[in-house]
């Protein structure tokens, strides 16, 4: 099935095995690593070329989500960032999606996609609702699923070279990792429609103007700024911060579930396979545009 990739979970290296709670405070997989220090959890994404989210990444994110539940009592902040030069995350692994869907009957492929979406929604919902403050420190390409991962966080701190985009319509799809409900939660509908329906990308300055990004910093400074912000957050009472977050950031559960349904309905159409094939084979300078 979509998410099944035996071996990934066991490949996560736990670097401190003295006790279970301590063991969860560090982990390293092939595409991501995390650590907890001074009340701040840092999740670094490092899968070539730009942290594409496929089955291997999902398994590692699930492992992180389990660790997060164990760590969050000792943490006040989570910082998610990328160690890859091109950007934060280029979104779903469309090559894997195309190849796997080609190898299956349509009904089986749709079932696999639904399972994948449900699993990634569980991870992103957990990050979204975590009782600590979450910060996405982004640079460069923050597209599709990468944009959706950032949107699950409480704050987005962007390097001035960051770019945000929902290119899914180009494939005959909508964002499937919770992007539309979360964008709608944070921004006015006109902006949501513009980003979704034109598929254009916007830079960090524009993203700040529309209320998507809370801080824009110089090139290469997003992680430093996120760490400084996380240190500030540590001065407040954790329970109070968690209560404030819960009050102002409801999880749009119903819309998230509806998004999965719509995505799966669209995925069953032949246009999607054609769109995926065109993307995979594209040598265009702007392959995210039709």
């Amino acid at each position, binding site marked *: 099935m979509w998410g099944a990739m035996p071996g990934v979970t066991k490949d996560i290296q736990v670097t401190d095995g003295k006790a279970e709670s301590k063991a969860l405070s560090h982990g390293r997989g092939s595409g991501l690593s995390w650590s907890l220090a001074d009340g701040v959890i840092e999740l670094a994404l490092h899968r070539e070329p730009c942290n594409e989210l496929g089955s291997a990444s999902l398994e590692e994110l699930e492992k992180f989500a389990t660790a997060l539940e164990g760590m969050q009592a000792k943490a006040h902040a989570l910082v998610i960032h990328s160690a890859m030069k091109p*950007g934060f995350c280029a979104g779903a692994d469309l090559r894997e999606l195309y190849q796997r869907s080609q190898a299956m009957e349509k009904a089986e492929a749709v079932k696999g996609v639904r399972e994948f979406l449900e699993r990634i929604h569980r991870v992103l919902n957990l990050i979204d609702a975590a009782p600590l403050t979450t910060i996405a420190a982004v640079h*460069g390409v923050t597209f599709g699923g990468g944009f959706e991962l950032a949107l699950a966080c409480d704050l987005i701190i962007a390097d001035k*070279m960051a*770019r945000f985009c929902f290119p899914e319509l180009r494939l005959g799809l909508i964002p499937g990792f919770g992007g539309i409900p979360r964008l709608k939660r944070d921004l006015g509908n006109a902006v949501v429609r513009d980003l979704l329906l034109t598929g254009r990308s916007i830079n*960090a300055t*524009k993203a700040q103007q529309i209320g998507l990004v809370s801080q824009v910093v110089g090139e290469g400074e997003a992680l430093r700024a996120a760490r400084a912000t996380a240190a500030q957050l540590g001065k407040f009472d954790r329970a109070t911060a968690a209560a404030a977050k819960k009050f102002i950031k409801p999880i749009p559960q119903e819309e998230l579930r509806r998004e999965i349904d719509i995505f799966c309905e669209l995925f069953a159409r032949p246009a999607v396979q054609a769109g995926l094939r065109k993307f995979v084979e594209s040598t265009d300078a702007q392959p995210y545009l039709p």
Partner: protein
Amino acid sequence: MNTAEQTLDEILGLAAAHFRVPREKLRPDDDFFKTLGIDSLQTLDLLTKLENHFRVELPDYELQGVSDFRTLAGKIQARL
């Protein structure tokens, strides 16, 4: 406001600096994908650099098919 020639000159200077190419190697009618040897992710970098420098918004779809510096300058000039 910049003249079209000033805009073009600034684009060439920015591209040369960002992609570490000698400025004198870049000409207005060059295909910048070939001259700079850039891929799709680097094209986004160039777009962001230009938007930040000129303080304009350049929707990607308006730049589709644009491959030379002169035409790019015209698109930016129209938004200044």
